[in-house]
């Protein structure tokens, strides 16, 4: 346990002296928190006659609940940002892990580390936790600040209740942590083939593509944003995590790193 703590301490000391990593950890959650709040503020006075852009399925839901124009617009648009919040646990770990592993590879500091009595599991866990903890922390902090800020911009309690429902809780408390694990493992796999931290980071960001597709699907009304969708996303992410953890551990062996990593 002491070694894992030391590794986390080392990873953070290194990572947070890197402006690129610090920028991603701080600014990405900030952006994904500010944009929805800004959207809420903009949508405070929307008459029902201006709801033409909203997909008919969503519009029908608004009519059932007897939402006003502003309520419908706020509820629809801001709910889409749920998926953008899920980009935080994907992007932050991939950045930290890319710099942590590929960075060590390029400065040749991995071999002295591997020569210590630290076990492979401790090294992987130390590096993974050093990426996962800030990512989950940043996601939750951004979400809480969003919830507090949204209170001032929503036009009614009925809209606010949309952010306090099980869909968001499953997303933030179940899907987000699973996404961080996915992201770290992808970073490890990419790190075994890439020698430049920036290249690893950019490749790692491709992990966000499926989520972006979901985002557009939700905007078009093709993918419903509800608890079932979030649970389905959690199951898929968990299955991917299981497979990638096995592959990541297989790749992160002393001999493999020293003799096969490029």
């Amino acid at each position, binding site marked *: 346990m002491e070694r894992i703590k030391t590794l986390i301490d080392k990873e953070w000391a290194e990572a947070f002296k890197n402006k690129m990593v610090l920028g991603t950890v701080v600014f990405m959650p900030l952006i994904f928190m500010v944009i929805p709040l800004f959207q809420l503020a903009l949508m405070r006075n929307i008459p029902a006659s201006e709801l033409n852009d909203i997909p008919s399925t969503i519009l029908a839901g608004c009519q059932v609940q007897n939402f006003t124009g502003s309520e419908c617009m706020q509820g629809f648009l801001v709910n889409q940002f749920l998926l953008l919040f899920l980009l935080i646990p994907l992007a932050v770990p991939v950045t930290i892990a890319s710099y942590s592993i590929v960075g060590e590879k390029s400065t040749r500091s991995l*071999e002295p580390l591997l020569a210590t009595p630290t076990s492979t599991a401790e090294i992987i866990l130390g590096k993974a936790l050093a990426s996962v903890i800030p990512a989950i922390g940043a996601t939750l902090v951004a979400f809480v600040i969003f919830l507090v800020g949204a209170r001032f911009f929503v036009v009614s309690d009925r809209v606010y209740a949309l952010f306090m429902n099980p869909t968001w809780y499953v997303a933030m408390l179940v899907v987000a942590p699973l996404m961080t694990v996915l992201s770290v493992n992808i970073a490890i796999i990419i790190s075994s083939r890439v020698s430049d931290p920036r290249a690893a980071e950019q490749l790692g960001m491709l992990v966000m593509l499926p989520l972006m597709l979901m985002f557009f699907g939700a905007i078009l009304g093709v993918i419903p944003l509800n608890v079932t969708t979030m649970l389905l996303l959690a199951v898929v992410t968990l299955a991917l995590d299981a497979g990638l953890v096995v592959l990541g551990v297989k790749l992160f062996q002393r001999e493999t790193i020293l003799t096969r990593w490029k």
Partner: protein
Amino acid sequence: MIRTEGLSKTFDGGKKQPAIQAVKGLDLDIQQGEVFGFLGPNGAGKTTTVRMLCALIGPTAGRAWVNSYEVGQQNQQIRASVGILTEQPGMYDRLSAEKNLTIYAKLYGVKDVLGQVEKYLRMLGLWERRKDPAGSFSKGMKQKLAIARAILHEPATLFLDEPTAGLDPEAAKLVRDFIEDLETEGRTIFLCTHNLDEADRLCSKIGIFRQHLIKVDTPSRMKTAIFGRQVEFRLKQTDASLLDFVKRFDFVKQAALEDNRLILGLDDPEESNPLVVKALVQAGLAVQFVSEVRHSLEDVYLSLISDENDR
């Protein structure tokens, strides 16, 4: 101590390339407190051997023991009981020298972390720069910091890969003196170096290696085995008949004449030299100097590697 029996390592070349045998049947026996010089050309398999002995990669055949722990069976104990200076210092450049060492002291489970860090930073002349990022250090300073990292946990065996490569003469001397101090503390040191003069000065035993061990012995015995003992007699004047004159003596194994220097190969120079000098003087030759020919380890190394190339 380090012991290997038929230690071998073959790297699988994959589908497109043939397998590469990096180390073949290595037998070594290095006692506690010895400084062992592991010499060989680039690509000879030295780093692979060090990695196997430090339990970083596994052998494909043979067995090895380091500090009485068996490679492949007790890897964690081996890693805890050895220190390694890798070819590249590999420091965390954004972190201070002190933080670099503190991290490693904790990973090695050192009890008095701050005490050990201070001890070695002072010993290697880095204490005043302890708060500076390692990335701001010169190559020599980084190398000293890496040596401090390798020794922090007081390992019984130390593997040093090119410890003075790229250092200025003053820093190189400091490192060499430091290695001598480590030897007096009874540590086993496994030194990979291309600096043969350094190996000659520091090592009690030398192994010349290229995929397999070509020869292992003390530097002086190795020189004698290859070149014999040779004595140079510097004369005021010589002539060609001198060679036939000295070859009459049974104890003269070889004889050569270079300018006014007569070089003789002798089994027992202490006994033979007075007889040779007496004969030369009686023959009317003026002997100016008598001295033993000192062969360098470089001569030995080049001779052995050249023989190996001819095979």
